[in-house]
């Protein structure tokens, strides 16, 4: 598997470029240098050697209605895991976890309610019951709405049952918020100018711009299907903004943002190889 750098690509390319120039210079001076391709393996963050199979179960998803974020995230992660990890990916319909969480919440609320017509006896609720009884927003629009759903992943009994159903795989689940964003303010842009002699120059100019785009905030939760317990979780937040006139479809933005996040997700589960070049010296 080959990972791509999302953040440091420019600096890496610059350093590689300087290295190549230096190598060429050294070669010109008679120093013997040999450029070789290398693939540096980065070990997986999680030890998942106990699992041969993975179930990307589904996600509590919300935000934009233009993209079925649960369905798309399940599809994308399954296809990435199929091609870029050693795990066997279980095919199953994506779980509708918003509904599952709502049902669990209803059941917890009913359990926590004081019995009717039993006189004036006072029943004290435990903090756990209070949390369980907190209502979950039906419609997830922002980060505040999605956070209460986190308790679904702490329900070990439920996830153990799901694990048993699929013969104890590693379970990947979590929350994904993909929501529209807009911002306005001063932005630095490069502007071409020509002087009296027709010479071109590029100068940075501050311009006021209205921009719109999307924000993607996934939280991947990795659950041991044998016990139902959470092994680890990975949270990321990415955002893309375009000029207000740009009509980039929501699904394209979703994939653009997921493209930045997927290497980290894969790096949690499997060894990644970073391609590069180095200079051998004699």
């Amino acid at each position, binding site marked *: 598997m080959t990972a791509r750098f999302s953040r*440091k690509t420019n*600096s*890496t390319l610059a*350093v*590689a470029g*300087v*290295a190549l120039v*230096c*190598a060429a210079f*050294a070669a010109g001076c008679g120093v013997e*240098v*040999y450029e*070789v391709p*290398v*693939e*540096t*393996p*980065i*070990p997986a*963050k999680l030890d998942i050697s106990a699992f041969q199979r993975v179930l990307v179960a589904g996600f509590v998803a919300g935000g934009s209605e233009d993209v079925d974020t649960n369905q798309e995230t399940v599809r994308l992660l399954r296809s990435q895991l199929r091609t870029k990890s050693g795990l066997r990916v279980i095919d199953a319909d994506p779980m509708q976890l918003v509904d599952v969480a709502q049902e669990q919440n209803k059941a917890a609320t009913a359990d926590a309610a004081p019995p009717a017509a039993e006189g004036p006896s006072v029943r004290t609720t435990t903090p756990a019951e209070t949390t369980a009884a907190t209502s979950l927003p039906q419609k997830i629009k922002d980060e505040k709405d999605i956070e209460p759903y986190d308790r679904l992943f702490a329900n070990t009994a439920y996830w153990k049952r799901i694990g048993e159903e699929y013969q104890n795989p590693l379970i990947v689940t979590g929350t994904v918020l993909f929501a529209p964003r807009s911002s306005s303010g001063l932005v630095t842009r490069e502007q071409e100018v020509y002087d009296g002699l027709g010479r071109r120059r590029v100068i940075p100019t501050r311009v006021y711009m209205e921009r719109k785009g999307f924000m993607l905030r996934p939280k991947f939760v990795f659950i041991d299907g044998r016990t139902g317990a959470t092994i680890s979780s*990975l949270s990321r937040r990415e955002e893309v903004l375009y000029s207000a006139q740009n009509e980039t479809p929501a699904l394209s933005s979703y994939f653009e943002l997921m493209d930045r996040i997927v290497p*980290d997700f894969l*790096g*949690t589960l499997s*060894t990644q190889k*970073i391609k*590069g070049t*180095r*200079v*051998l*010296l*004699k």
Partner: protein
Amino acid sequence: MALTTTPLLADGRTDAREQVEFGINVAQRGLWREAIYRWEKAVELDPKYAAAFNDLGIAYEHEGQLDKARRAYEKAMALDPNNTQIRQNYDLFKEINDRAVQSKDK
């Protein structure tokens, strides 16, 4: 004394250079473990051979032995601090190594 040690040092460098050349040859064909064996021999024969430590750093990096790679690169830089190629190799390695360390800490 100087007369007796100089030829010995020269021999050490000559032998080490042969090992380095052989290592480069096999590394270019993808035989990195053999290259490591050769370059480890080279630094044994001549512990002041910066290029051999540089090559060893690259090979360890390729094999995912990141701690050993860091030590080899640092030794190469200590022996030849003005060598820009060693510095560039180290900088590229360090970027990946930092990422690996960060992901372990998360």
